[in-house]
């Protein structure tokens, strides 16, 4: 039976960092390297390392993984090769989630065109982080702690399953922070458009089943809130691509 896994293309520091960070989400993580020179490291490395070349038709992958639900990370050092790899994967697997790394904004645009669901432009991401750390140090620290779970504060996505609890109320009618100890940042509707909680659209949209709230709060409060209105949900990338 084919498995859902994370396929990381490229054997470098980026791919190792990614592998170390996504272990909680994927049971199967495999690294694909174009050069065999570093395979000696495999013995010391926790993840299996496979060899590949850009001319492959990926038939082998199709047999081993459920490519509809798996995620591929394209982290090749050479931009042109990375773009070629992305196109090659996308042409073979329509629904594969592809996350690619780009050196700059220009190659990020090309990778998006090549079919990547999400691109991380390294230079822009790092510089934005540095500028934020200098200009808005408090916010950066707070968000960093929330997002990367370095404090007891968490951010979660909660799907509304019990809309009778709200009884046709609008999101702004409820004092979330006072009543539930959580702060609702935004509401994602069934049509997958995400709205800020105080936006005029969210204001005039009665809460109903299927809405997803993005909430910030302490783990216990989030759990309580979750029991009350629905369940924590994972939104698949296939549903979420801009």
């Amino acid at each position: 039976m084919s498995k859902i896994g994370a396929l990381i293309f490229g054997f470098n520091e980026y791919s190792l960092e990614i592998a170390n960070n996504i272990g909680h989400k994927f049971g199967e993580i495999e690294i694909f390297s174009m050069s065999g020179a570093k395979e000696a490291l495999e013995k010391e490395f926790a993840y299996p390392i496979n060899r590949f070349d850009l001319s492959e038709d990926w038939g082998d992958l199709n047999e081993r993984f459920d490519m509809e639900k798996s995620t591929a990370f394209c982290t090749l050092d050479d931009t042109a090769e990375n773009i070629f790899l992305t196109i090659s994967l996308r042409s073979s697997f329509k629904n594969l989630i592809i996350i690619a790394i780009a050196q700059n904004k220009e190659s990020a645009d090309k990778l998006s065109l090549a079919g990547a669901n999400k691109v991380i432009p390294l230079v822009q991401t790092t510089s934005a982080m540095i500028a934020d750390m200098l200009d808005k140090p408090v916010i950066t620290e707070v968000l960093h702690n929330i997002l990367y779970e370095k404090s007891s504060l968490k951010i979660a996505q909660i799907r509304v399953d019990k809309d009778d609890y709200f009884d046709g109320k609008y999101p702004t009618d409820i004092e979330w922070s006072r009543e539930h100890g959580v702060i609702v940042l935004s509401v994602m509707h069934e049509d997958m458009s995400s709205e800020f909680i105080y936006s005029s659209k969210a204001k005039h949209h009665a809460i109903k089943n299927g809405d997803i709230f993005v909430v910030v709060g302490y783990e216990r409060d989030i759990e309580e809130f979750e029991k009350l209105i629905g369940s924590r949900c994972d939104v698949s990338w296939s549903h979420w691509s801009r």
Partner: protein
Amino acid sequence: MFKGWIVDIAYAINVSDSYIQTKRFFYNLLENDSYRFKKYFDMVMMALIFASVFIFIREVKYHVDDSLLFFNNIIISLIFLAEYLLRFWISSSITEVIIEQSEYDLMLSREFRLSKALRKIARQKLEYILSIRAIIDLLAILPFFHQFRLLRIFILFRVFKLFRYARSFQTFVSVLATKKFEFLTLSIFASIVIFVSSVLIYVMEANNPDSPVNTLYDAIYWSIVTISTVGYGDITPITYEGRMVAMIVIIAGIAVLAFTTSLAVSAFTEKLDEIKETKTVDDISKLKKFYIICGYEHISKEVAKQLVKNSNSLIVLDEDPKRVENAKSDGFVALNYDPGNIDSYKRLNIDLQRQVKAILCLRESDVENVYTTLTVRSIHKKIYILSLLMKEEHRNKLLYAGVNEIVYPKELVGMIAREFVGKPVAFEVIHALRSDYTNINIEEIIITPRMLRNAPLVADLHNARYRVILLGVYKKERKRFFFNPIDSTILEEGDYLVVIGNVLFIREFERSLYR
């Protein structure tokens, strides 16, 4: 006994705080270009000079009020006299010479030689008095003796004093001084041509009754007018031989003029970069709060753009001229200084503690960043340093060198990937809050005493009324973030409110706190 007193007095003066402070104040005011009040002092002095010259010109043909004459002859002269005496005072230190001599003699176990110290003091002071600047200053005071009519012409020396206050003129002179040898050679050539042609024209024309050249003075005047290519035409040679001389002088004149012009131009071209650099350093020293970006590569370029977009000032230092050119063409203030060299920071003439917000070591090389960090740390222990880390194994080295904050792009990618696959919606929401693409922002508002009077408690903020979410309060004192604070939370000066909302609503909310 007497000598002992003198040494004691010298020591007492040399350690007196008020004496040191007073002398430093006048030194800064008169000589230190980076002292912020000097420019005002210079402006006042320049205004006095212009006023003085204006009165002088007016007096030639019209009656000038006695009070104005009193102001010109007495007040301005007294001010200039005071300035002259102050400059004389700060030009060298008498007490230090006495102390130095006494310690020297003491070390050699012999009696203090006062006469030697006095000779040294006299030499130093005389050196100052005989300097061109001091002579001009002194001559500018002379119109004080207005009863001697001849001395009044010295008022024009006040115009020369202008050069002391106009730095552009000093730059001009210093640039031309680099071509001293060339100018000297040229002037010798011109002098010889003038001398020879004057003598020749005198010999050829003086005996001709129709010729306007009658004296050697006429001949020299004609030579200078001709060689300078001015050629008034009031004196012209009429003899065949005289005209031959004229042709030679005209040709020599063109050569002299062309050489002079090209010398001045080449002097300026060669010094242009230096002049620009001096101007840039001067501008930098006037900045109040700015970032220093060390190294101009991909990431630093983007960081610089972001910081400038958020209304920050910054300067770029890089040892590579090409990268400096790139930074300049991108519109940043950049200097071709090596950020890893202590001398670079000294040449900048800035107060790191007061003027610099942070030093950003953004070279994409850990070796360079460690080196720069160590350099900065060696001159300032407390300044905030942020550095880029390219390889994890070098993290400890950067920390050991004294970096306050490290940004490791690979770690960032790992964390982003973690969130991407885990909570994409939450990630996008946070990302949208931080980016400028949407109108919804997350911002920090610092609590001021005025805000505290209006809203001492969280309940008094009424943020919901402005459709603004209060995510929490960051207590600066405790360095702790209080998420979703209860209404009775007491706000303190210096706390940060972390709020989320539409940019306009946040502004409105902020304004409401000031009302």
